[in-house]
């Protein structure tokens, strides 16, 4: 049972971690909690649905339930959702930031979240969609440990994206600039860093990673308007657990939340799965508000 909890938890945790990276970056850089982050995942999933549909049906790849059109759709959807996130900042948040009031920004993000979710529901309806109607066969990985090929590919892609993000932040000038602005915006300006450019890059990256999380969630579960909203609490829990502003923290936090949620199902019942993220988040806020990786206090 432990092996199954681990594989299920790590798969869903990797998706949570991807979404939480964008959340923790915007929290760290812009000092506000973006409630619209989950909706980027929803829009990413629906963009991919449209694009994969437009690219037409292709035979599934090996044991997977989807073919190359969904992989192409994933990349295009990441780009489109990045633009959506950037546009939301340009139209809404950038103007409000000039007033420097974090509460106004949080409320605005809540409004944006409702608007984005309603728009999805208006355009696509409330019923769920699937990228494929094929039945995903499980593979036996070890005694008591089974996973579908879809799950394994999603996990591998999520880990590749996390690694890429980590390398970008650790090794590139843009990554250094993002960490510098997050730590000390005034000093970053004095050092010649264009904070507006860094903020744009943060929205683009956060949107793209959230879209990937949404597509992966669509592959392993389903695509529906509330998927991003339901992901929001685990995203916040992961970001707070890892430490606000810490990208490695968001990744580890996502994995911990995913495993805790997966463990809750056999131990306490599926109805308590969502409560686990809330409990972990509260416990971390009470015990160590700076998170595991010592980011900014939540």
């Amino acid at each position, binding site marked *: 049972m432990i092996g199954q909890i681990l594989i299920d938890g790590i798969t869903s945790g990797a998706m949570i971690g991807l979404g939480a990276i964008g959340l923790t970056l915007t929290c760290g850089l812009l000092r506000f909690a973006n409630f619209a982050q989950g909706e980027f995942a929803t829009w990413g999933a629906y963009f991919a649905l449209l694009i994969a549909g437009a690219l037409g049906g292709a035979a599934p790849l090996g044991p997977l339930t989807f073919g190359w059109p969904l992989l192409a759709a994933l990349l295009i959807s990441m780009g489109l959702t990045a633009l959506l996130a950037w546009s939301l900042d340009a139209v809404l948040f950038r103007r409000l930031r000039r007033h420097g009031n974090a509460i106004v920004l949080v409320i605005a993000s809540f409004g944006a979240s409702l608007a984005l979710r309603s728009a999805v529901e208006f355009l696509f309806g409330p019923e769920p969609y699937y990228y494929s109607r094929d039945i995903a066969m499980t593979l036996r990985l070890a005694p008591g440990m089974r996973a579908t090929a879809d799950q394994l590919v999603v996990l591998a892609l999520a880990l590749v994206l996390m690694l890429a993000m980590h390398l970008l932040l650790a090794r590139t000038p843009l990554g*250094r600039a993002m960490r510098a602005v997050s*730590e000390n915006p005034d000093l*970053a*300006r*004095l050092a010649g860093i264009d904070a507006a450019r860094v903020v744009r890059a943060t929205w683009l990256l956060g949107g793209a990673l959230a879209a990937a999380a949404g597509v992966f969630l669509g592959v392993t579960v389903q695509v529906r308007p509330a998927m991003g909203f339901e992901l929001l609490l685990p995203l916040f829990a992961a970001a707070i657990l890892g430490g606000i502003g810490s990208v490695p923290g968001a990744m580890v936090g996502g994995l911990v939340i995913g495993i805790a949620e997966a463990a809750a199902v056999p131990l306490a019942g599926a109805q308590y799965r969502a409560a686990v993220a809330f409990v972990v988040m509260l416990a971390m806020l009470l015990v160590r508000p700076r998170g595991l990786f010592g980011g900014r206090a939540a």
Partner: protein
Amino acid sequence: MSLLEVRDLVAGYEPGLPIVRGVGFALDAGEILVLLGPNGAGKSTLARAVAGLVPVAEGTVMLGGGSLLAVPAHRRIGAGLGFVPQSGNVFAALTVAENLAIAAAVLPRAARAGRIAAALALFPDLAAARGRAAGLLSGGQRQMLAIARALIPAPRVMALDEPSAGLAPKLVGTVLAKLREIAAGGVAVLLVEQNVRAALAVADRAMVLVEGRVAHAGTAAALRDDPRVAALYLGGVRAA
């Protein structure tokens, strides 16, 4: 024409509440001008306004004949102005090497390694600590890193806000002596200091601010020997 010219500067954090009230000065290449005065006199605000971190309501700031007022803070280093703030003057979570790399990023790629090497030659302690997080450095090393960071883009003017704050007396002399070295290389230095004795020892000229206005100005030697200045504005201690 001087390298840095500030005229009738009025600046403050809130509109209608100026902290600096009509200050002017000129600074030439290779010269050190120290700003002195009691707490709340507007010294740091003046330096931060020159650096573009505090809104300027009136007046002009000219560097090399060009106005800086329309230049955003992140472009002033490219225009030739470096600034070392009093606190939070290094990126604590980044390594020493990363702090230096960020400073060098405004330079052409070919010039970066050379400028970093020059900064490390001036502050050899930093070379051994390149891989350490800046937040783990001692106070003196941190101040040296902050100065090195501002120096790497080869500024023509360098402003420093109380670089001796929090340092052991022995280190204060070391840090200020480095400023003399930097000025000898042709950089104009604007120094905000509370440590009157040490600052007047390295400065060429000094200006005493009181309530946002220039109360006294002259050569460092003249101010050092002026008993009225010492008694009224320098805490009643006549600097030796």
